[in-house]
């Protein structure tokens, strides 16, 4: 006979029933809750892309230069993507190269990072998870930020890449996945857009400044020109009226001689001025029109010194030229190079007070080139004015213009002609101490004079005969 198991207590059964129902309903509630949370998290991630783009566009307003955008852009990326680290990279070398330089990085917290990375090939999109094999390019990409989990986008056209890095796979909510392509590529493209926009804006600002300066320079030139033209013209008209038939002003023969000399000098001044203006205007195409030939350097220098000598004498300035250029030939346009030297020497004398010195120097360089220099002990130029005086129609200051009349074309003409010769024009100056202009001629524009060469060859082949 078997014993019938005791009937369970109805209350226990009821309790077990409610426990089971409670747990089942709780589980359903939990899953619903989790689904809802997950939906909100994903919706938030979608909003993140939009927010990131919006915030990145604002960087254009707070940064002055394109290069300044990188760092705040990474801040925006990290803040929105909630990643641990991020970096911007630029491809080095030609298209197709996979060598990158890290231009900006964030989140390293004092830890060092490698400045360059070479990839076997640069993928346009890539990410790593715990299932990713540590082989190229994962190996190289994870080494950039020293994090095992990375999200990468590369724009081959611009050569710029963005990489995000996490220490843990399920960072904040979930691992990187294909859906994150929108995030990383969106961030990269908005960065490129903002940077390009800023670059265009900077260029536009610079062009505007140049245009404004050019306009101002033109106005200054017209004012100067007007003054420089009127002065000799007034002189010509005034003196010629005095001597004109029917003039009521009595003149002696001596006075008439003086007036004619004044008219003549004013006419020459006008001619010089017009020559200079036309000369400068023609310099735009100076290089093709140069007639270069090998010219003995000492003949060039002596001629220029001769022309400047009388001005220096009148100014009480000593013109100094020790042993210049003997035995050398320069491949230059004879007339134009004399013009260069004339302008430089004339300018140096003009801005050097009485008892000052102007020195013309020449030295062959170890590379075979040569330096021609004109140094004075004159008033000098402020460092901030140097660029300006090399622009047409400019002098260092208005005060200079009043004290040293002229069109302000001498230096710009000389500089343009020097550069048309393939040489470099360097102006160094210290206010109160003087100015040195150096013309650096390249090796192919300098050679030993043919007769000097013959003497040296002879000496080399028959050393015993030399005395």
């Amino acid at each position, binding site marked *: 006979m078997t014993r019938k198991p005791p009937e369970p207590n109805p209350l226990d059964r009821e309790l077990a029933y409610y426990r089971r129902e409670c747990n089942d309903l709780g589980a359903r*509630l939990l899953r619903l*809750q*989790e689904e809802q949370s997950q939906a*909100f*998290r994903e919706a938030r991630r979608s909003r993140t892309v939009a927010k990131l783009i919006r915030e990145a566009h604002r960087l254009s307003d707070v940064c002055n230069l394109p290069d300044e955008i990188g760092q705040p852009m990474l801040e925006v990326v990290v803040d929105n993507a909630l990643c641990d680290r991020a970096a911007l990279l630029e491809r080095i070398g030609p298209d197709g190269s996979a060598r990158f330089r890290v231009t900006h990085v964030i989140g390293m917290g004092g830890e060092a990072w490698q400045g360059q990375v070479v990839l076997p090939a640069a993928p346009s999109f890539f990410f790593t998870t715990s299932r990713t094999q540590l082989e190229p390019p994962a190996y190289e990409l994870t080494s950039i930020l020293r994090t095992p989990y990375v999200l990468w986008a590369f724009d081959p056209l611009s050569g710029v890449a963005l990489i995000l890095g996490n220490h843990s796979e399920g*960072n904040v909510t979930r691992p990187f996945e294909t859906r994150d392509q929108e995030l990383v590529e969106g961030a990269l493209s908005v960065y490129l857009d903002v940077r390009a926009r800023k670059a265009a804006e900077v260029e536009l600002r610079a062009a505007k400044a140049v245009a404004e300066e050019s306009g101002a320079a033109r106005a200054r030139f017209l004012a100067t020109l007007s003054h420089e033209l009127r002065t000799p013209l007034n002189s010509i008209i005034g003196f010629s009226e005095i001597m004109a038939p029917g003039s009521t002003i009595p003149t002696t023969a001596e006075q008439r001689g003086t007036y004619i000399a004044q008219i003549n000098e004013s006419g020459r001044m006008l001619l010089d001025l017009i020559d200079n203006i036309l000369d400068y205007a023609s310099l735009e195409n100076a290089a093709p029109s140069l007639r270069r030939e090998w010219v003995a350097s000492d003949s060039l220098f002596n001629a220029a010194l001769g022309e400047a000598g009388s001005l220096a004498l009148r100014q009480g300035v000593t013109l100094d030229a020790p042993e210049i250029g003997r035995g050398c030939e320069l491949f230059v346009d004879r007339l134009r190079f004399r013009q260069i030297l004339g302008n430089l020497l004339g300018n140096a004398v003009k801005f050097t007070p009485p008892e000052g010195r102007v020195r013309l120097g020449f030295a062959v360089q170890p590379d075979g080139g040569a330096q021609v220099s004109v140094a004075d002990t004159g008033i000098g130029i402020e460092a901030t004015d140097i660029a300006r005086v090399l622009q047409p129609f400019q002098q260092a200051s208005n005060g200079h213009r009043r004290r040293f009349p002229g069109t302000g074309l001498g230096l710009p003409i000389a500089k343009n002609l020097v550069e048309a010769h393939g040489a470099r024009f360097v102006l160094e100056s210290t206010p109160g101490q003087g100015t040195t202009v150096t013309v650096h001629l390249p090796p192919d524009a300098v050679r030993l004079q043919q007769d000097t060469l013959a003497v040296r060859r002879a000496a080399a082949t028959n050393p015993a005969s030399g005395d």
Partner: protein
Amino acid sequence: MIRAANVKSSNPAVAARSCREGVGPDTPLMLLAFCGGKHDPDAVLAALTAEFGPVPIYGGSAAGVIGRDSFGYGGFEMGIVGFYDPSVVPQAVMTEALLGGVRAAGHALGQAVGGIASPDAAVMLLFDSVASRAPPRLHFASSVVEGFHDGFGTTPLQLFGGGLLTDMNLTGGWVFAGRRVLKHAAIALVFPPGIEVETVIMHGCRPISSFMEITRIDGADVFELDDQPALGVIERMLGLPLGQTRGQDLSLEVTLGQKQGDRYTPYHEGDYVNRLILRANAEAGSVTLFEPDFALGTVVQIMSRDNSLMLDSVRRGVAAMNGAVAGEDNLLALYIDCAGRASARSGAPVEEAELVAQGLDPSIPLLGFYSGVEVAPVGGGISRSLDWTGVLAVLRRRR
């Protein structure tokens, strides 16, 4: 008297300068500072010193910072509180011995605080939450707090505070200790007798299971619930394939909650002490909790983190706080907010921190930080460590 400011910048010098502009040109007597974990702490300390001079700086890393007008958890936030009047400046006591034994360190800290604190003093406790990143191991807040109470004794005390993190992933944490940056350290800021603190705890978890008894446990590792493998019980609740739960997956979804007092009274959010799940151990079928303060025989429930409940709780909590401090000489509000409540992590449609910033009486300077754990008096009694809560504390002149 007390001023607060917060900014976001990856450059510590820029951030410190902005904070300085935010609080004004006066030189404070002490700074409380929290900054996002992507900052280099030494650089932050140097930048703050450059701006404010050689004032003592306490605080540390935070998974994010909450201010009156802005908040963030990207890692480059900085928030400061300047104390300008000697009558409100707390005294700092610290221990650097968390690594050697959390409970003992808490005990020593409590003892030291007991030597200087007035009865019912307001004391803010801060410590770095992460003991090690791999494997993930925390400085158990419950042990620090229990040790603290043991060392402090039975004198009434208003203990509140939180654990410091560098981010939401439990990567690390550090503490500003005057002129130094420390790890494995705890600081107690003991406010003068004339200052008291009002606290409100805001929750957001709801029980979704019947009561279960812990039938096997070792420290923070819970092996069995009602004689069943604990991980399996939780996976079944979540509808997950058994034995495949990885890493920190569960910490986003469920907690274990212990109801205080009579367990059969109607649900009230303040009755629960919740413990987040640090990790799942598939081989052992166990889960590791954030704290080791549950024991064999503890009756728990599986709790769901309910975002709408969380937001309701914040609205109620802030309203309760406004009511409690209305007409008082309020000095500063500190919001110690579990990092898991941020919407990026919780999936909440609204940032609950924003509700605090917008809802709290605007005349009270506010600074908050995202924490690893929160500490506050529970049920008007002794302070405990809490998980997934927001603790709003308002310091005010004692009447």
